[in-house]
């Protein structure tokens, strides 16, 4: 177990109302999410001495601006270019700064008009990736500009090698859509999915149809991390950060020719070692789900099912409530909302606090959860949380 294990905790989570068209700016949405997270923790803005955020293509607002309009002056602000895995990686940064004694309480947020404003992976200037990345000139001329195309290349090879079928992808979608029906704040609440409908839906980028792709929305999420000693002063039940692991693989940022490995394959061993637990100890999960197949690939990486058996694992209902690994229980990015992974982490925190106790949404008595991030196949950031 690592020295930092359980020395810091998530004490507040919050979001704004997700929608297709917010009619407002990322700053306004981030302020709402931050205020809600502060209220959840029983803290005030002046208690924050660190604020961090991640964004893609400048789609958010700077941490300094958020601090300005929360009316506080933190010691430290940090804005990174990121996406999937950034929630976990920024929480790791916060833990490091708290453990180093530099900061006490850090707010991390993601705010994006991901539907009405800048859509991730869409509407790129045709020369943008070519100018930005050495590999860009070797993908853009061939029409490859969408994550659905990039990850599809990994998915098709992996499915070919392991026997995962379109139906298996469908089981991931159907499991998460089922969760969304219990979550009134899920964007696809009231829109359940069955296998017949799923299989009849035409592909956008093979093997993905619209149900395999996350639901792009305007929304903001916020998380507050503080020291375990300060957590005692908060009104919420603390959820401790037990372990973490970052990892990169692949030589290029986008020209991914080696599709047989993903960064998560290498992060898993470090992650479990850092928390001193095993995959079979995990009771609830937040698994990055920008696309359905990404969930299947991570279940293999993080040891929840053996290579070649992941399809059967999800077909048996193990991602559903009552299964061996209830995952993305708010509906996930496939059906709740999409803030580059942060909304899944909010739900994991709420499950571990037993916020839903007495309702059918609660994963009964769960104490240990995993959050896995996936920026692309080349980057992983994961953490293990305990109550």
């Amino acid at each position, binding site marked *: 177990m690592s020295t930092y294990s359980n020395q810091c905790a998530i004490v507040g989570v919050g979001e704004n109302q997700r929608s297709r068209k917010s009619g407002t700016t990322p700053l306004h949405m981030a302020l709402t999410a931050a205020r809600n997270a502060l209220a959840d923790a029983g803290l005030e803005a002046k208690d924050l001495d660190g604020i961090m955020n991640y964004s893609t293509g400048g789609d958010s607002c700077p941490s300094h601006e958020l601090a300005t309009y929360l009316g506080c002056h933190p010691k430290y602000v940090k804005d990174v270019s990121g996406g999937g895995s950034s929630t976990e990686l920024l929480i790791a940064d916060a833990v490091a700064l708290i453990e180093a004694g530099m900061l006490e309480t850090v707010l991390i947020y993601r705010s994006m008009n991901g539907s009405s404003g800048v859509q991730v*992976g*869409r509407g*790129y200037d*045709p*020369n943008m990736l*070519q*100018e930005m990345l*050495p*590999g*860009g*000139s*070797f*993908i*853009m*001329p*061939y*029409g*490859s*500009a*969408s994550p659905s*195309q990039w990850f*599809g*290349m*990994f998915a*098709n*090879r992996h499915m*070919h090698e392991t026997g995962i079928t379109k139906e298996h992808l469908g089981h991931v979608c159907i499991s998460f859509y089922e969760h969304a029906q219990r979550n009134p704040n899920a964007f696809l609440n009231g829109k359940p999915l069955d296998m017949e409908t799923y299989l009849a839906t*035409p*592909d*956008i*980028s*093979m093997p993905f149809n619209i149900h395999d792709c996350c639901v792009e929305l305007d929304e903001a999420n916020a998380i507050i991390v503080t020291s375990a000693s300060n957590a005692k002063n908060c009104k919420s039940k603390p959820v401790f950060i037990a372990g973490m692991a970052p990892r990169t693989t692949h*030589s*290029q940022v986008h*020209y991914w*020719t*080696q*599709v047989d490995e993903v960064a998560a394959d290498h992060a898993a061993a470090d992650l479990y070692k850092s928390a001193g637990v095993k995959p079979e100890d995990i009771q609830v999960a937040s698994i990055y789900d920008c696309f359905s197949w990404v969930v299947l690939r991570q279940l293999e990486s993080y040891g929840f099912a053996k290579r070649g058996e992941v399809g059967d694992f999800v077909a048996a209902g193990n991602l559903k409530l009552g299964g061996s690994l209830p995952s993305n229980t708010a509906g996930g990015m496939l059906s709740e909302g999409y803030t580059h992974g942060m909304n899944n982490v909010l739900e994991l925190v709420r499950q571990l606090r037993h916020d839903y106790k007495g309702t059918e949404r609660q994963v009964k008595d769960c104490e240990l959860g995993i959050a896995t991030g996936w920026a692309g196949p080349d980057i992983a950031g994961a953490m293990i949380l305990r109550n």
Partner: protein
Amino acid sequence: MTKQTAYEKPIPLKTPDNHEYWDAADRHELKLQKCSACSTFIHPPGPACPTCGSPETEWELLGSDISATVYSYIVSYRPFLPGFQHELPTVITVAALDAAPDVKIMANIIECDPGDVEIGMPLKMTWVDITDDRALPQWVLARG
């Protein structure tokens, strides 16, 4: 007189690191960067070797008779970049060169029925003249 149709798709951007590759492509040849220290091919080309970090690199001409196999592929039913709306569905593959299987070259598989494509299928490289002075390497299914 037929009306000249402008090429709408992104044209490969030549840079100091990659122009040898694209200059050769314009001549309908495949040329790959290679590490002078560890002899690993470097693709896409760059300022140093991603395998060993050496800045010493050279170029090797592989010619115009290039065969490969489909390592993975996707079929894309929507255009995400200009120009592709005319050619849907689009097949994009990463193909492993027969001469150097660790080198995987991404391109479209053109002139094919997407339903015919399978992982492991043999491919031949072809070059499509996209403007007066530029050509784009592409794959076609190797038949017969």
